[in-house]
């Protein structure tokens, strides 16, 4: 799935579907279940019906009629933040939950593949 047509063209995946929505909405609009379902049906159907490697199917969905979102915040100014290895929790509550190790029995950080194990803890 993609909402960045030029980047997907450059990456050249085997099969892709493009929905012309603002970034952060690749799979649909928030809480619009019928739209989300329809996008996914079109997406999954592409597995069966696309036959040319590297092609991109343009899906027929429109974010809105006037396309004004395409011009909003078009990369003005410097909004980059300093990169840090500090986990960027959505909330303090999440941070506390992770520190308690509430999901210690499951995969927490899957980065230890160099030694042949895929994750810490037992996921299966």
């Amino acid at each position, binding site marked *: 799935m993609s909402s960045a047509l030029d980047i997907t063209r450059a990456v050249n995946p085997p099969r892709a579907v493009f929905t012309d929505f603002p970034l952060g909405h*690749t*799979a649909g609009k928030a809480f619009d279940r019928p739209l989300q379902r329809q996008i996914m*049906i079109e997406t999954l159907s592409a597995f069966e019906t696309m036959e040319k490697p590297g092609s991109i199917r343009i899906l027929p969905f429109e974010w809105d009629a006037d396309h004004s979102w395409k011009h909003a915040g078009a990369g003005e100014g410097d909004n980059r933040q300093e990169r840090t290895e500090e986990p960027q929790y959505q909330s303090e509550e999440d941070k506390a939950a992770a520190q308690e190790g509430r999901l210690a029995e499951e995969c927490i950080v899957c980065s230890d593949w160099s030694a042949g194990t895929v994750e810490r803890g037992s996921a299966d």
Partner: protein
Amino acid sequence: MAEAPVEYIARITRQYAKLGYKPYGWVYNTDASPWQPVRKPLAQSRVALIASGGIYRQGQIAFHSKDDTSFRLIPTDVHTEELRTAHFAYDQTDARKDPNVVFPIDTLRGLVQEGFIGGLTQHAFTFMGGIYSSRRVREELAPAITGRLAAERADLALLVPV
């Protein structure tokens, strides 16, 4: 009236130049795209959801912003209200209200219920796509996820970037 899609590469290249940053080394894969024919009907296929929107489950460690090439396993029977996002490069407002916009888990579960697809792998796979080093994605993250896809016997891999 239809309007052309946003040209993100050109937009970001202009922005970096204006701010005096080094140009970003975009990946252009010019070889023929790898191809595997689909071997089963959708209704018999096990789908693996792979999403780069920084989704984690409450209780897991969130992603960080400095070339984080780790990933999370999210059980595909997860309660949607336990899902969170951590990402620096897109507007997370809607994703935090309804994770399905970048992590279509309810959508896919619905289509399993309908019999449109056969099922889902035991886990979905999530990471934070704002990784500057494409080499590290290629050499570290992608092989690790590919290994899990084989272990969970995925028939189809559905990639959802943001």
